[in-house]
């Protein structure tokens, strides 16, 4: 798969674990070692109890599309359009919503509530970007 055209992320102390796991095809959020709540994006502080001791936690189950858009505009030279951008939530992981692309179906087939599998694809700057896969019914 060719890398998608785009602008790469600036990686920080807080986000390094996410982008490094992404290269391995794994979706990693932060889990609080004190109360167990999960937070995303990673900020090194629990959004539930404000504890500072956070550890990486992998999400493997199916997610559901909370909302989406199909982008038709070529914002950058060589950007291939159209593509669907999806906001995905996970029934077993409250408080986690991740933005990514959608593949495995026509972009215009995206719907709210659609089930997707976690996935990644080659993105700008050598990074892997979230790219959810339409799940078999």
């Amino acid at each position, binding site marked *: 798969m060719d890398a998608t055209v785009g602008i790469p992320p600036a990686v920080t102390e807080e986000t390094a674990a996410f982008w490094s796991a992404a290269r391995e095809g794994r979706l990693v959020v932060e889990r609080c070692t004190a109360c167990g709540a999960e937070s995303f994006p990673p900020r090194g502080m629990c959004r539930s109890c404000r504890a500072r001791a956070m550890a990486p936690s992998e999400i493997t189950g199916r997610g559901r599309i909370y909302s989406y858009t199909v982008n038709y505009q070529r914002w950058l030279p060589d950007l291939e359009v159209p593509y669907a*951008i999806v906001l995905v939530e996970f029934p077993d992981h409250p408080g986690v919503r991740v933005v990514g692309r959608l593949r495995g179906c026509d972009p215009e087939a995206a719907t709210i509530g659609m089930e997707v599998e976690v996935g990644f694809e080659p993105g700008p700057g050598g990074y892997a970007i979230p790219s959810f896969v339409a799940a078999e019914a």
Partner: protein
Amino acid sequence: MSSAVAERRAVISGVGQSAIGRQLDRSGFQLTLDAVLAAIADAGLTVDDVDGLAMFPGGGKANVPGYSGANLYEVQDALRIATTWKQGQVEGMSLPFYGPAQAVATGEARHVVVYRTVKEGSAARNAGGRPAYGAIHPDAEGPLAWLLPVGALSPVCQVAPYATRYMHEYGVTREQLGWIPVVQRAHAAGNPDAVYRDELTIDDYLAARMISSPICLFDCDVPVDGSTAIVVSAADTAPDLRAPVRIEAMAGVVDGRPSWEQWEDMGRVGYATAVAMWNRTDLRPGDVDVAQLYDGFTIEAVWWLEALGFCGTGEAGAFVDGGTRIALDGQLPLNTWGGQLSGGRLHAAFGHTAEAVRQLRGEAGARQVRDAEVAVVSNVGGFEAGAALLTR
């Protein structure tokens, strides 16, 4: 109630604008001076009366070319004024006059000029099209790190999921919401400074190309070159002022996740700000004569129609359908200067505020709303939200 409401000690005394156009062959700095001098004269003041200066964006990073038109220090140097209060309004600003009103209400300054200058029209021409957000930086920092790499390369892509979710939850259609840009275009015909003044029909709207679904071309504001300046004065200087407008109430509340993509309920935006604003006044939605609601995109005006209580949640489609309620002679004339959709993206509710002031003074020319005594102004929505009531 009035003694507790600080903004009653402030008035908007002047508004001024430079030429506004898709592309203007003058610097943002000169456009800024045009607007600032016009606003000061409009207030009935002289440059030497000004002791406070503010701009948007201040130290904030511009993510697109043409976003930030004139440096605060250079403007102060050109005006040759001494200031007792200054503010570079960074991201998170609720309304253009919010900080300045607090400054004059607390006596830190008497007359504050706040300005916003854009050269985004020229920037878009130079880039061969509206540029990607963050395209002038090598990588995507902060909140944009979760958006730009995956292809959410413009505010259009960032706001579109709100419209998708809203329309899904409440069964609202593009055929209904299209009346907002259509009616605003009709209003723009009465505004000589608007950038798009030719008739737009609902058929034109529905035939327009999609940018990021469900947002089409006519749901997007228009990048322009231009500057708006607003003078905010202490209320007790009223005898020195030509035609001050009162700030009845203002609020800027963020009670959800401060992020485009993490905002919890994308079908409901702006409610906490609206509640806070109404709690500061005895006026009610039915008292409002004219509405200048932020419209970077059509859906943003929808948020405010509902949050401010002009119709119920999910009812904005029915409210604007057919266009009569939001027309100049309707129940709630909306964005009478054309809004950012047709008047131009002057940004951050500066254009909206200038129009509200003109309407309340009866200086809106062909687009004047009859007997306008109460105006509402709003800015953005979720994680940057401001709303205010202005009165004669």
